[in-house]
């Protein structure tokens, strides 16, 4: 893996906006950064692909393990949600089976940082924008990227099971546009696959208590809905419990709650201790967490935190004197914490630490997108393209 600086295309802003990336700048700093790209060998890319596929099958085992051992309380999942998760898991309800692994890579070891299995973003950047950049700037190189086609195939595959004339696609009204455009991109693909789509804001989803159904603005029943909105928010909101009363099919299904929270990290370590793809992890109240912290730098993560909020990196803690190496603020933490051994991502440039995001669609790894940020990746990280050369 090499970091290479390069010239951005002259009209890059206009170009990426036309392709849908209207959130290319954050707080006046570029978010889409095409002054840099990463170059990988074919062998590296194959290793990352294989590692991601292995991790996915480990997550499948972990889902069953959580159900068989009734570990839901450790994941902060409300009791009333548990039967819904078990039913959706057992019935294998229609799903895109997609997500984004965040991996640390130091040139030798590949380590799972976490799995964004419910509402992964940076999709448009990974599937489309970086491909278009490559075709224009590095046309003879390859890229680890079959994401768009994989979504087309998967939507085509599940179209007959949608049980609805229209599939609703829900998101928040985010003025930066990332959620709106990401969902619109998926709607594009669904329509390519022959599915008719209706956009709806999460706030506009209605509940008809007589008919026990979710409705859209026209009082049409919402039979199948894709949402870019996390399950852990839905189940705690006013309409959350109505999910249990209605027949609405949700994409992604509710069982994704088992995978998209950080509590799965200590579960995986318990199932696969010392696995080369895993970082040693425990729940913060476990004895082993304290032992780990005595000898290694660790990262403390709230079970449900997002976009790098409330993360603390602590240096070795032999005598209960902690040395905080880095920390971020936020509103998460009530639900509990995990302690994960710190993995030193290579600093490839000053204050630039790349996190590799490998994309899974239909349970298979189909591409990668890279975000470069500070030592804790948050929403100021920049997306940078990559190529495969050699």
């Amino acid at each position, binding site marked *: 893996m090499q970091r290479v600086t390069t010239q951005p295309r002259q009209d890059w802003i206009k170009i990426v906006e*036309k*392709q*849908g990336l*209207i*959130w290319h700048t*954050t707080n006046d700093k570029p*978010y889409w950064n095409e002054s840099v790209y990463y170059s990988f060998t074919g062998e590296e890319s194959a290793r990352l692909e294989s590692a991601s596929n292995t991790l996915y099958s480990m997550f499948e085992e972990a889902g069953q393990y959580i159900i068989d051992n009734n570990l839901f309380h450790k994941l902060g999942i409300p009791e009333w949600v548990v039967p819904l998760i078990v039913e959706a898991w057992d019935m294998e309800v229609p799903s895109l089976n997609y997500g984004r692994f965040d991996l640390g890579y130091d040139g030798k070891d590949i380590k799972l940082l976490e799995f*964004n299995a*419910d*509402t992964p*973003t940076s999709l448009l950047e990974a599937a*489309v924008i970086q*491909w278009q950049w490559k075709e224009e700037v590095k046309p003879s190189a390859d*890229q680890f*990227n*079959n994401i768009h*086609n994989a979504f087309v195939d998967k939507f085509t595959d599940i179209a007959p099971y949608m049980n609805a004339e229209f599939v609703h696609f829900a998101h*928040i*009204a*985010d003025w*930066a*546009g990332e*959620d*709106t*455009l*990401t969902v619109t*991109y998926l*709607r*594009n*693909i669904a*329509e390519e696959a022959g599915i*008719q789509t*209706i*956009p709806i*804001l*999460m*706030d*506009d*989803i*209605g*509940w008809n*208590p007589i*008919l026990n159904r979710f409705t*859209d*603005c*026209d*009082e*049409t029943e919402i039979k199948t809905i894709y949402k*870019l909105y*996390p399950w852990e*928010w*839905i189940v705690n*909101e*006013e309409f959350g419990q*109505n999910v249990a009363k209605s027949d609405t099919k949700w994409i992604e299904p509710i069982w994704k709650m088992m995978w998209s929270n950080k509590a799965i990290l200590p579960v995986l370590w318990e199932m696969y201790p010392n696995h080369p793809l895993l970082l040693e992890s425990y729940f913060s109240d476990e004895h082993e967490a304290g032992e780990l912290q005595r000898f290694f730098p660790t990262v403390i993560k709230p079970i449900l935190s*997002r*976009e790098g909020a409330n993360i603390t990196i602590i240096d070795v803690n032999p005598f209960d004197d902690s040395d905080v190496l880095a920390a971020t603020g936020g509103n998460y933490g009530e639900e509990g914490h995990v302690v994960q051994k710190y993995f030193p991502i290579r600093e490839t440039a000053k204050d630039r630490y790349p996190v590799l995001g490998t994309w899974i669609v239909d349970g298979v790894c189909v591409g990668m997108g890279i975000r470069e940020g500070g030592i804790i990746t948050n*929403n*100021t990280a920049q997306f940078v393209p990559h190529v*495969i050369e050699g």
Partner: protein
Amino acid sequence: MKKNTPLFNLGLLTTAAAALALSGCGQSQPQYLAQNQNAKICTDNNGKRVKENKCERRGGHGGGGFFWMFMSGGSRVPGYGGRAYGGSRYATPGRSYTSGRSFSGRPVTSASSRGGFGSSARGYGGGSSFSSGS
């Protein structure tokens, strides 16, 4: 992994970019045209149905941000404020279209309550790059 990624259809994306303020729900119920019925409704730039008088200005040709949408038999005619799908900006020659006024729909009843989702995003939100995703 050199795969041919086709240039996807940008149409929906550019419409979405213009319609970021996709706001709430309309004021009347949708209706369905019979198979031998065709109708024309008036919509704004975002594809939302508005009152016919907005298109009937300017000699009935629309314009000024409002357009006729021609719906054919079997189509779903949205209520006012609702989104139109499956129609065309162009009339089929030889076909006659009933004015949308004949499909003004019953007022939306309060059968459903709304606003029961979305509060968490407002709670954590703010900031130029806030997203519900991760």
